[in-house]
């Protein structure tokens, strides 16, 4: 070791500190942006509270209670203060705090996205590795076109066609929702994720029904990740395969499989970690559409149905939280990077 562990540690801390500062500025901006979007809306927030029949004195009173007579900056201050107390306002539909609603629906999305990313990893990585070993040949081109397809499909449309073909016509999978109607509410919601809850409750019928329902939406949601992971894996592998140590390994007469998986692939694991984290984050975007198509009671559907109702509190809070999750995910990956890869220290 050429460096003392001391300087190494301080470098990592410095890097993290710098990251923290930029992230907090970004977060502040995120808040300002959602606040501003909330203010330009053409819907009168007072009217949604008092109703259209209220007289002008009630209107005036609520108007002042909501702090709308204050200058914008003061309003922003109040908004921040409420946020610091975890208060994102109440949702119109349920009348409950938006945050409670989101915590309730979020496990469903987490479940869907996790199954989707498993598809992405299990299909995408071997595809990418294989394409790299076949560079320039027909298989490589075919894989390239397949992954371009994954980027180009409107995910909601594939979802609908999937439902039509595999549910309505072939009856291979379950339809909308998370479990069959007969199994609804049978297991105790411990984690909120039916796959795990049914295992905890040892209710295998519910588990089977849940698996049957999750497989199609998760696969379709994961298509984009398959493409992304496959393409990135391919280019990382190509970079490794052109290195001299690979040549050495081949000259030594190691079997090609060992060269690919034991040598080259092991060296791209850290980069893949970042890519998978990015893909996982972007699944949130697809989830908004897929959940609408499959009537999946998650975060995405909550966001779109709140939007249809003109419930700005719920919409802004959801958008803000999605932004927060994105930033956090990026930060965590950034922090994990030096731990797994000594070269970046």
């Amino acid at each position, binding site marked *: 070791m050429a460096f003392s562990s001391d300087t190494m540690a301080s470098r990592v801390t410095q890097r993290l500190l710098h990251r923290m500062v930029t992230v907090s500025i970004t977060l502040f901006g995120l808040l300002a942006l959602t606040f501003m979007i909330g203010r330009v809306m053409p819907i009168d927030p007072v009217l949604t509270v008092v109703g259209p029949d209220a007289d002008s004195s009630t209107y005036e009173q609520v108007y002042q209670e909501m702090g709308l007579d204050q200058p914008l900056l003061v309003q922003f201050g109040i908004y921040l203060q409420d946020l610091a107390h975890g208060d994102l306002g109440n949702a119109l539909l349920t009348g409950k705090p938006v945050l409670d609603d989101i915590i309730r629906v979020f496990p469903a999305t987490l479940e869907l996205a996790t199954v989707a990313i498993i598809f992405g990893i299990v299909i995408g990585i071997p595809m990418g590795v294989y394409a790299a070993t076949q560079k320039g040949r027909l298989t490589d081109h075919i894989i390239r076109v397949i992954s*371009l397809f994954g980027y*180009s499909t*409107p995910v909601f449309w594939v979802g609908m066609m999937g439902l039509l073909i595999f549910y309505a016509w072939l009856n291979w999978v379950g339809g909308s929702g998370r479990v069959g109607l007969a199994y609804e509410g049978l297991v105790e919601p411990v984690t909120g994720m039916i796959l795990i809850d049914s295992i905890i409750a040892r209710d295998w019928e519910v588990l089977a029904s849940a698996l049957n329902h999750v497989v199609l939406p998760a696969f379709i949601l994961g298509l984009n990740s398959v493409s992304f992971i496959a393409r990135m894996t391919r280019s990382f592998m190509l970079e490794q395969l052109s290195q001299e140590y690979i040549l050495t390994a081949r000259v030594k007469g190691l079997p090609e499989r060992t060269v690919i998986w034991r040598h080259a692939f092991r060296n791209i694991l850290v980069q893949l970690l970042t890519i998978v984290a990015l893909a996982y984050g972007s699944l*949130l975007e697809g989830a*908004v559409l897929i959940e609408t198509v499959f009537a999946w009671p998650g975060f995405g559907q909550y966001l779109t149905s709140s939007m249809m109702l003109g419930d700005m509190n719920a919409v802004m809070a959801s958008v803000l939280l999605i*932004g927060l999750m994105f930033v956090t995910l990026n930060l965590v990956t950034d922090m994990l990077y030096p731990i797994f890869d000594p070269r970046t220290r």
Partner: protein
Amino acid sequence: MTAETSMTASTSMGSTHPNRYQALWTLCQDSTKRLLKNPLTAVGLGVVIMLLLVALFAPWLATHDPLVQNLNNTLSAPSAAHWFGTDEFGRDIYSRLVHGARITLYIISLVTVIVGPIGLAIGAISGYFGGWVDTLFMRITDIFISFPSLVLALAFVAALGAGLEHAVIAIALTSWPPIARLARAETLQLRQADYIVAVQLQGASSARILCRHIVPMCLSSVIVRLTMNMASIILTAAGLGFLGLGAQPPLPEWGAMISTGRSYMLESWWLVAFPGGAILLVSLAFNLLGDGLRDLLDPRSE
């Protein structure tokens, strides 16, 4: 790489030579030839040209009026009279798709026209001046990038109200940051170049240097990036249309067609299958084209 170096040569001469456009034209011809060597890229380009032609000649290609209802002939299956069938109001789906190509093209071009200059300006100014200007602009860019684009567009449309124009504005607001980052990266490299230092020493103003010497140099890569963005613009627009936030009925926007067709999907699959196929085809074409362009300009990615 050759493309970029010859680009550098042609444009840096351009400030003194009058035949800058001629050089650019030769470059374009040269690039097109190499671009079409890849059959996939050629297919992509072909479909994009087809989209342009269909949009241009929509009234002649359509067999029926896209908006006129015929309640005696609703939800009829694809046939010789109606190639892609009819929808719930008896309108011909093929004709609606053909006219929808105009809306798709309208969205793509409007977003691109808005996003290109904004991204270029922010990126070039940020990269050229550096310092606090750079920090400020890049932080703003970070904020916009930290939302998934569909979600941010959703929020903007929710605030502005549903509609085609608002969807365009929302998509534009979410798609300028990558362009700005690209332009900034290019500018940072250019700023150190000898010829920029030379014009600086001659006393050229910052505005002049930016407009005459930096922006033209960033143009080629920005244009490529804009082409690559078109597929995602189409998908975001379709997603907004599907959620009922984009183009409003009776406009034959493809995403909105899928949205209304959804209720009739189980009995009449053609209401959903064909508009979705059109979206897939066009966005795949732009992706193929963008992929080819990137290989051409950056062989390292291969």
